[in-house]
């Protein structure tokens, strides 16, 4: 089910208060087969029900109401991770720097080359696709981690912090044999083929014990 979502057609969202700009961009994106949704303002975008697909946002830094840059910060704060391609009518360098630092995909001065815009949007969509994939991977890891018993979870934490079986046995007050058996079942349930892989999983889940 989750995998199916990733295969759905990606979407480009355009926010611009001028209909003439929205219509032109819409035509350009549709001409290369991209799915487009248009919004006249940032609040309108936030209030909409957007498809759960890889997406990219195209907007003018001079949005009415909160500026494009403020909106970028607002999205980051609300934990909405969507790559943004900015357009600007002025070659404002400090603004460009600020936007790029805050993670904008591209900053295009108007009028821009159509290829530059399409490249930027494709880069944004690719970024979002990767992020979604990673997110779904973490979701799989989480459910596997949840299937461990509390004792197994503890052993995973200790193992990935770099402790040896003997030290773990001493730490939690069981025999070294028991640690070995539990450790085997952790590896199996998590689907890890090596200790290094298990460490990477613990890292991704944020459950890795502090190296001692």
């Amino acid at each position, binding site marked *: 089910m989750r995998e199916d979502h990733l295969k759905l057609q990606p979407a480009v969202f355009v926010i611009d*208060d*001028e209909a*003439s*700009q929205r*219509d*032109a*961009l819409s*035509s*350009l994106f*549709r*001409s*290369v087969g991209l799915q487009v949704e248009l919004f006249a303002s940032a609040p309108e975008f936030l209030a909409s029900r957007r498809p759960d697909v890889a997406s990219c946002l195209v907007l003018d830094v*001079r949005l*009415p*109401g909160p500026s494009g840059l403020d909106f970028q910060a607002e999205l980051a704060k609300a934990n909405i991770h969507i790559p943004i391609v900015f*357009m600007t*009518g*002025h070659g404002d360098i400090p603004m460009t720097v600020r936007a790029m630092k805050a993670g904008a995909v591209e900053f295009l001065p*108007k*009028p*821009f*080359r*159509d290829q530059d*815009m399409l490249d930027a949007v494709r880069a944004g969509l690719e970024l979002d696709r990767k992020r979604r994939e990673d997110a779904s991977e973490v979701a799989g890891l989480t459910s596997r981690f949840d299937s461990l018993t509390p004792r197994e979870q503890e052993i995973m934490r200790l193992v990935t912090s770099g402790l040896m079986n003997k030290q773990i046995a001493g730490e939690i007050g069981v025999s070294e044999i028991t640690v070995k058996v539990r450790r085997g079942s952790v590896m199996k349930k998590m689907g890890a083929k090596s200790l290094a892989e298990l460490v990477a999983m613990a890292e991704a889940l944020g459950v890795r014990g502090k190296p001692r």
Partner: protein
Amino acid sequence: MEGVSRGKKIAAKSRASDPSLDELLAFERLRFDLSSRFANVAADEVVTEIETALKRLYEFLGFARATFGEFSERGDLSILCSAAAKGLETVPLGRITGFRKWFEKELFSGRTIAFRSWDDYPAPVSRAVEEHYRQRDIVPQLLIPLTVGGNVVAMIALVAFRSGREWPDEFVARIKAIGEVMAQALIRKRSEDALRATQSELARVSSLTAAGQMAASIAHEINQPLNAIVTNGSAGLRWLSNPEPDIHEVRAAFERIVREGNRASQIIVGIRAMFKNDSREASLDLNRLVRETLTLLDSELRMNKVLVQLELIPEPLRVLADRAQLQQVIANLITNAMEAMNTVDDRARTLRVKSATSKTDGVLITVEDSGQGIDQENHRRIFNPFFTTKPQGMGMGLTICRSIIESHGGNLSASAAHPHGTVFRVVLPIETADSA
């Protein structure tokens, strides 16, 4: 007056040492006359006027020379004018030099210097000074520091011909009073010069800023349709080169290109009109000027979420005016209205621009906002130079607007709008057949 009785012999030359009632009256008349002259003198004529006064003073007193100097804030003395009896040299103008420097510090610290004879001169300077005055057969000197507002700002110096004359306090006080009339006029001139310099600099800066803002706004206005044209053109080409070209999409893109091209051209017409007839009065339609100005400020207004209500009378409003200047006024009033509303969030930000004609007033344009309004205290001052309620404001906008409107024979006023905000009224004389 006892102490001066021995100067009788030389009364003709030095009348102040033997004041009769007539003389006292004459002195008072001179003082009154000088006071009234200086009260009305134009700033750029102050120095000439001081020179004339000095001449009258030493002639009246039968003295050798009268000199007037100005102190800088640091206490440097410069001679502004000097008048002397025939055959005597005047003190060189400008910064004092050489042997004369000795009295600079004394005077600036507020002390009056009065010498009757050589014995009164301070030892370190006496030799050089003595030599100078002996050659010219003059000795008695009176140098008075002149204060305005508690600061020593100038000095007046009198030199009498050789005699052992006294400088009675009453006499010193009279000369000081006359000198201070001159000093006050001088200070007024100084501050008027400074104010004029600041004002012209501010006017220059504010018109530069306004031009810069206008240029940025124009660039943005033109860039928008250009960008739409380029994007629509690119999109159209892509629709055409797809394996199955979509003719409907191509047509729609072309239609948008035409529309945007026309829009750009409209904006350029507006700009051209704005810079035409640079400082010339010409017949123009105020309604049209209002519309054009609103077009130029369109994106600013939309950014600030301002709702524009335009209530212009259908007939053209002809006035004889300088287009660029009037546009500056209208743009300024609209920008002010916009800024007055940018904190308004609980009601609509409405900008209402109306036009009307009346037989008595001529042509009327009103610009009304729904902002906070102006309180009573500030209301009286909004047209004053340097008055501003904006953190970055210079306080020149409305001052300049009013002077532009007045130079066109009209007037600009403001009053409270109901229920919120402020309404500015521009009244201009209507163009008649004979004024065209």
